[in-house]
């Protein structure tokens, strides 16, 4: 934005009539409007985040007691705690990573080391992964209901339970599988990125020592992409832990008197609990403090997971740097 100094010099010599040539306003020549505008908009973003956080912390910190974290909801969700929801969330995302990480890593390995980059199959997989990331999450919820519950679950019931209802109903396994499909792109992309960053030298050294492609992947590629795989896993968890739409049809429960213990149990979940508290409460006034505190817990959980991802990445990077 700044004018060429030589050009400015010429202009002043010739006494061009411009407000910028006036002594009092000359400093404005060095002020470009873009930094001011972009700086202001950046400030707006930060301000919004601060306002949201401030509101939640101020409203929720008071209710954040030990009892709140360890007790079950009581009296029609107007009292008590959210322990079943915390437990359900942890169980859910744990199962989700068990499904998503192996599949995601396998896909990344396939794309990078087995498929030819220009092959139709590789392109198809890439398009699928990219589009998977763009599908609205409610669609995943309906997909989970239609595919996992009504098709896979019913199929299992017919084959192994004589048609009795065991797996053909909303359950934690179907919700976690649905979330796994939703978070797969994150795992695939971060893993592939980490694999791309592995020095070619390591791969060559491995082949030169007589390693097969699989041995090279197993002993060189995967250990050296651990950072990316873990980061992808944690990012997937923090994304998955906050999703409500995919699980509301596939296994999340309004209220359960017991904790989920089997794969085909339903479960309570923090995000869904927030939705329940804010829309289905019998007494909105009484629920509001609980709602604030629940949101705060959910936020802390996802922030903590993101922070953990950063820390792991840094530690592994340091270790690799020696």
């Amino acid at each position, binding site marked *: 934005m700044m004018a060429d100094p030589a050009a400015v010099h010429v202009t002043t010599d010739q006494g061009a009539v411009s407000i910028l040539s006036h002594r009092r306003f000359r400093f404005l020549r060095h002020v470009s409007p873009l930094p001011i505008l972009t700086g202001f908009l950046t400030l707006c973003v930060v301000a919004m985040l601060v306002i949201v956080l401030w509101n939640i912390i101020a409203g929720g910190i008071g209710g954040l007691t030990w009892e709140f974290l360890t007790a079950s909801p009581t009296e029609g969700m107007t009292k008590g705690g959210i322990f079943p929801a915390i437990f359900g969330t942890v169980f859910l995302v744990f199962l989700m990573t068990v499904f998503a990480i192996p599949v995601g890593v396998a896909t990344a390995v396939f794309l990078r080391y087995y498929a030819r980059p220009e092959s139709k199959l590789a392109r198809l997989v890439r398009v699928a992964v990219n589009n998977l990331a763009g599908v609205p999450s409610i669609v995943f919820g309906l997909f989970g209901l239609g595919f996992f519950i009504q098709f896979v679950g019913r199929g299992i019931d017919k084959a192994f339970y004589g048609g009795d209802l065991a797996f053909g109903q909303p359950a934690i396994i179907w919700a976690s599988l649905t979330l796994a499909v939703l978070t797969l792109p994150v795992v695939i992309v971060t893993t592939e990125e980490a694999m791309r960053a592995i020095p070619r030298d390591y791969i060559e050294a491995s*082949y030169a020592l007589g390693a097969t492609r699989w041995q090279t992947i197993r002993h060189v590629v995967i250990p050296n992409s651990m950072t990316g795989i873990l980061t992808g896993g944690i990012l997937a968890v923090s994304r998955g832990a906050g999703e409500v739409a995919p699980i509301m049809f596939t296994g999340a429960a309004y209220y359960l008197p017991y904790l989920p213990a089997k794969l085909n149990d339903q479960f309570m979940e923090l995000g869904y609990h927030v939705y329940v508290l804010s829309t289905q409460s019998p007494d909105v006034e009484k629920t509001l403090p609980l709602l604030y505190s629940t949101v705060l817990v959910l936020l802390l959980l996802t922030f903590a997971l993101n922070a953990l991802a950063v820390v792991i990445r840094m530690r592994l990077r340091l270790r*690799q740097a020696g």
Partner: protein
Amino acid sequence: MTALNHSHIAAKQPERVVVGPPPVKIQVRGLNFFYGSNQALRNVDFDVITHAVTALIGPSGCGKTTFLRTMNRMNDQIPGARAVGTVLLDGTDIHGPDVDVTALRRRVGMVFQRSNPFPKTIYENVAFGLRIAGIRDHYVIDEAVENSLRLAALWDEVKDNLNGLALQLSGGQQQRLCIARALAVKPDVLLMDEPASALDPISTGKIEELIEDLKSRYTIVIVTHNMQQAARISEYTGFFYMGELIEYGPTVKIFTTPSEKRTEDYVTGRFG
């Protein structure tokens, strides 16, 4: 241009006591190499002599590294790369249909230009080749690690720190570690792609001494840009230019009385 002709050498160098032709480890005939439509090697005939050091020299992009990498089929990794011609290792075509390329690479080891130890411990770096070869016995691996590190003249420097990270070693030590790692799988041939080009003179000297020590047991082929190095350490030298083998013969002859004008120009530093 032509392969090393043993009778020819014997005739031209009567002062050399030659008891029969020197044994050939790798015989290359009519080798052409393509990167896509780009021809990198043209009709190369070459005999790598057993238990000797063969230097490959030539300006950058002349095909010497490509040639080196065809001998353990490392170029297989490059999409669109294709070798046409025969490369016989102890009489067996390495491009043959029954050849297990992993077994070939265990017999024909490789050391790269940039030292490339894995981000693992010193011990695990040397043990890598054994482990992937399916060796589980700790005593066997321990012994192989020690022997290889001794062969690579690194044992005394690292014996108290075998579980230290390889990447914490100096550049020269890392390169000797890579040599130890290559030796651990007991190859017959060691291919070296400018192994000292990134090292300081002292480390380079150590690598050269090491090559000198190793040649009684291994057949060594080394690519180098350093004329003095080629003259110092090799028995045979091949000069490549624009994908062709211009001249190949005993190092003494290549550096003192080359038959080709281009060889003379290159070794005397007039181009390249």
